[in-house]
């Protein structure tokens, strides 16, 4: 995606001019803008989703309620689950989330999307060649596994509940949460045990 460096100063100037006019017209204050940026940076992000996943792994009752209705994230004090659908990866089914028309993404549990999720390449290809896309992410999905792609075309938001990694039986809920990556909750990665990850990276 083009982010023309020569153009950036002009864009920054346009944004500054717009803010100046909107303040003048009473539509926002610089402080409100700052406060929203603080929220983007501190209050939302994939740690919320990771807590949800870890809880679902250790608490079958919560998991059942979560798969029934994403609003169950409210039990962990996380707001915004009213339009959330959580889909579960299993050895037979793999879920992947995309938004082909714009960049819909489950802010409540994952925060702001990474640039690749918003890229033309991901948006165009995830629905027509998900296996090829996942291979670029280093994730080979065997032919026997069905891939379900969720194209977020309305206000429903999708989060993937990844498979709990083998060998994680004795980890605490907090230790489990620390394993869960943003990419795993989008469906472009699996959750790995730290050792396994080190081996894979080696």
């Amino acid at each position: 995606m083009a982010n023309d460096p020569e153009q950036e100063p002009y864009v920054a100037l346009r944004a500054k001019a717009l803010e100046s006019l909107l303040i003048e017209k009473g539509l926002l204050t610089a402080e409100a803008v700052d406060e929203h940026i603080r929220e983007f940076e501190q209050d939302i992000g994939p740690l919320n989703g990771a807590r949800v996943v870890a809880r679902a792994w250790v608490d079958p009752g919560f998991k059942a309620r979560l798969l029934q209705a994403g609003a169950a994230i409210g039990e962990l004090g996380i707001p915004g689950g009213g339009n959330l659908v959580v889909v579960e990866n299993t050895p037979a089914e793999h879920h992947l989330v995309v938004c082909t028309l714009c960049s819909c993404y489950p802010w409540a549990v994952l925060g702001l999307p990474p640039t690749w999720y918003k890229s033309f390449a991901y948006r165009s290809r995830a629905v027509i060649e998900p296996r090829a896309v996942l291979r670029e992410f280093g994730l080979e999905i065997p032919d026997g596994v069905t891939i379900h792609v969720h194209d977020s075309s309305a206000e429903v938001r999708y989060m993937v509940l990844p498979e709990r990694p083998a060998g994680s039986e004795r980890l605490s809920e907090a230790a489990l949460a620390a394993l869960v990556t943003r990419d795993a909750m989008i469906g472009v990665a699996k959750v790995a045990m730290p050792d396994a990850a080190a081996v894979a990276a080696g």
Partner: protein
Amino acid sequence: MHGVHDLGGMHGFGPVAREENEPLFHAAWEARVCAFEEILCGDDRSFTLDAFRAGIERMAPANYLRASYYERWLASIESNLIHEGVLTNDELEARIDLLRRDPDAVPPPAVVAPPPAPRAQPPSPPAAAPSFMVGDAVMTRNVHPTGHTRLPRYARGKRGVIQRLHGAQTFPDTNAHGLGAHPQPLYTVQFPARELWGESAEPGQSVSLDLWESYLERAPN
């Protein structure tokens, strides 16, 4: 509309480029634009989310593809505020000129007037009861509206199965154009990839979309 934003199934954009340890924003102005949208966009605010999306889609196709993500957001915020009469293009250009000449220019003191009331939306009839149940086979309609729609081009005239009901939700195709919310039942519809992509489909794949009732017809047996 069949715009360049309707990217599902398009070729030619290359591999998915990822950035290690990507920052949340790549420039300070991006964070501010993201906050503008949060503050200004909503059903009872300056413009609706549907109008915001339609504003991005109305960008000239070459500009859409050339602009960065938050540049597209900024373009739509500007065009929606101009459309709603909140500001004019001349005001914007004048302010850009002022700040280009003098980056520290202090704009006139803020007028502590209440912000303009958002444009009243035309009334909508209440949503009808859902016509389809989970498991029903449906066909998406072969429609090609020039306005905003959330039925992607790759899923027109295709056969799928109702997977989930979501209750009635605001219809973007009217709401984006100030024609009212007209809530309709929303469904998750699952399509076999082969229905969408024919023999070009990868094996063992489905695609699900969240689609409003008026995008759908009962499938023939």
